């Protein structure tokens, strides 16, 4: 049986890891960009400021030296215009410098004296007055209707006039916009690429893990010899496979030791019993009809019972350690139950019990026939031993999607209260029971070894119900294994 499930992609670890990895990567890149942006913006402003300060100084000098007169306005305007043409960010000259630079001269009382620029001079004047611009400390001012803020530097002339030179932040903004756009495109590409790389690397690696999981899931009680695929290299996945396989080695060893112990226990106990039984039998075959036959025969019966108890104990012990040995082949439960019913019907009738079997179509399970036979025999024996005359036993075989249920019901006295809660435990039996107390423990062990489930309960009215649920074999596994359930004749 495999636990491999086709999970939706969003639930795979590869997807989650890629998502978190990419998010962390993107966040890191954004933080890096913010620093870079801050630095570039600061640098651009520093250059603009130094240009503005230098230029306003020059203009101040020119204005200072130009005599006040008719030509003053023209000379200063031209110098100012010339100056505005060599704006900073020299590598890409502004296309319309007149629009990006203004020159303003006010007299000591703050009235406009000279203006060079495309903007609304009154608005500029107002904005300049709103801020106290100290010489050598350029500031940003906002001018209504302008595309961007202006950086304005000032200088005070000896006659009290103040000269302002403003530089539009448009260029600076454009540079930063370009920077942001490039960053965005490149960053998006890198993040996407990173995501794909992380996703496919993780997926590939976790694919190994998935294969290990799938293989490990198929290693059950009956198949301890398989190992998970070991991958090349010495990374974590390779180590996981290696460690898992070494663990399986140890488990297999432990189970093998258990088998060795139970085998030698069985051998050491059964060999003397065999010898004793053989002698008793030989004695019995020789002693015809005289008084010795009866005790000898019952001694043989007792020995057989002892052996059956031993076998069951060892099997239940092995099953408890999930180490029951299975030799699986297709078993037709329908046929098996029919045979069982035929076998038990006379004995049941003898004891005044009635037996009905309801089963319609063949139900094939992949199981160990010998264990399944003994399991069913235990159930039937149990009914035969514990039901008072006049009761009836109903067996029902139902098959549903991928599973089948065997229901065994009777209308007898039910399980005694003292054992009802732990009916499948070893040596659990009612005070009136003459059995070994291993029957149902063995049944449960067999069902569990076949990855099935079993429930037993007292029916509300009267009697008991035992439900055994087993997995049906898939058509594929039927086709691959030959249906050999023939029995060799003597």
């Amino acid at each position: 049986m495999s636990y491999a499930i086709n999970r939706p992609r969003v639930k795979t670890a590869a997807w989650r890891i890629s998502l978190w990895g990419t998010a962390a990567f993107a966040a890191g890149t954004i933080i890096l960009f913010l620093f870079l942006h801050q630095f570039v913006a600061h640098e651009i402003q520093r250059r603009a400021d130094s240009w503005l300060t230098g230029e306003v100084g020059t203009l101040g000098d020119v204005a200072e030296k130009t005599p006040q007169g008719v030509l003053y306005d023209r000379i200063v305007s031209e110098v100012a215009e010339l100056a505005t043409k060599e704006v900073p960010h020299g590598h890409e000259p502004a296309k319309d410098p007149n629009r990006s630079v203004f020159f303003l001269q006010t007299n000591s009382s703050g009235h406009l004296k000279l203006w060079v620029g495309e903007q609304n001079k009154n608005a500029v004047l107002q904005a300049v007055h709103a801020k106290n611009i100290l010489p050598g400390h350029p500031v940003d001012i906002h001018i209504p209707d302008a595309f961007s803020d202006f950086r304005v530097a000032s200088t005070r002339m000896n006659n009290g006039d103040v000269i302002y030179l403003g530089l539009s932040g448009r260029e600076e903004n454009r540079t930063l916009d370009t920077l942001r756009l490039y960053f965005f495109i490149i960053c998006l590409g890198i993040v996407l690429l990173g995501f794909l790389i992380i996703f496919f690397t993780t997926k590939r690696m976790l694919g190994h893990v998935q294969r290990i999981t799938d293989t490990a899931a198929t290693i059950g009680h009956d198949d301890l010899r398989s190992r998970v695929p070991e991958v090349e290299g010495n990374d974590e996945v390779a180590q996981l496979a290696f460690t898992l396989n070494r663990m399986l080695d140890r488990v297999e060893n432990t189970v093998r030791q258990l088998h060795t112990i139970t085998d030698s226990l069985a051998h050491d106990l059964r060999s003397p019993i065999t010898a004793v039984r053989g002698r008793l039998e030989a004695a019995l075959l020789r002693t015809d009809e005289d008084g010795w036959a009866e005790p000898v025969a019952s001694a043989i019966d007792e020995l057989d019972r002892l052996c059956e108890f031993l076998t069951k104990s060892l099997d239940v012990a092995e099953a408890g350690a999930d180490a029951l040995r299975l030799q699986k082949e297709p078993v037709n439960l329908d046929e098996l139950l029919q045979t069982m019913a035929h076998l038990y019907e006379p004995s049941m009738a003898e004891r005044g019990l009635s037996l009905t079997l309801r089963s319609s179509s063949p139900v094939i399970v992949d199981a160990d026939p010998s264990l399944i036979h003994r399991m069913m025999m235990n159930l039937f024996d149990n009914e035969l031993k514990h039901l008072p005359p006049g009761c009836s036993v109903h067996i029902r075989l139902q098959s549903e999607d991928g599973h089948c249920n065997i229901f065994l019901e009777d209308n007898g006295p039910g399980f005694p209260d003292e054992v009802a809660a732990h009916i499948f435990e070893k040596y659990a039996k009612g005070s009136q029971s003459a059995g070994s107390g291993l029957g149902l423990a063995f049944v449960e062990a067999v069902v569990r070894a076949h990855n099935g489930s079993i429930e037993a309960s007292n029916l509300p009215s009267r009697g008991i119900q035992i439900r055994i649920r087993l997995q049906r074999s898939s058509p594929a596994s039927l086709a691959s294994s030959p249906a050999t359930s023939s029995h060799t004749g003597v």
Partner: protein
Amino acid sequence: MKLLVIEDDLANSKFLERALSENGYTIDLAHNAATAERLAMDGDYAAVILDLGLPDEDGLTLITRLKARGFSAPVLILSARRAVDDRVRGLEQGGDDYLVKPYALPELLARLRNLLRRNASPSDQSTVLRVLDLELNLLRREASRAGETLQLTTQEFALLEFLCRNSGRVVTRSMILQQVWGMRIQPDTNVVDVHIYRLRSKVERPDLPTMIRTIRGVGYVLRDK
């Protein structure tokens, strides 16, 4: 007929030796794998009875090695475990057989006979079985005693057929279960006895001598003389 018995338990091997020689076989005993191997390669044995739990080697390993070296006699494996190793089943498919301890002597003898016969000639193909005044027509699935038809169910017929085929020999309950119901199990209850009881009520008649005899603790025998 010479047999090789490989069994480490002294009491068991002595018992086997005696029982088998009483039934007309010649026995060589080996108490460990090394002796067994030497004997097997030298002697000419009709069959081998092998206990799986040997002190010096696993019985199956020994038999696999012997077979690889060209040893061809059939092997009857004695195992202490009911859940037998799948390798044993492999051997069973190869013509060998196994028996779980403790076994009934008649069963051991029956299986041994079967192994030897399987090796020699195909089994009896006749369609009519006759034991004294009992007659079974295997084709028409009809049985009669002293000319009078018996009304038997399918299972009763199969049971009687098995007894007839082994007439004069003791058959055990587990042999019956395996042959008639196809189950290699040992029931806790008297299920087989009840079937025999029912069969008896149809076969036996007050005016005729008893045919089916019970040997308590062992099994049943169909009288053939």
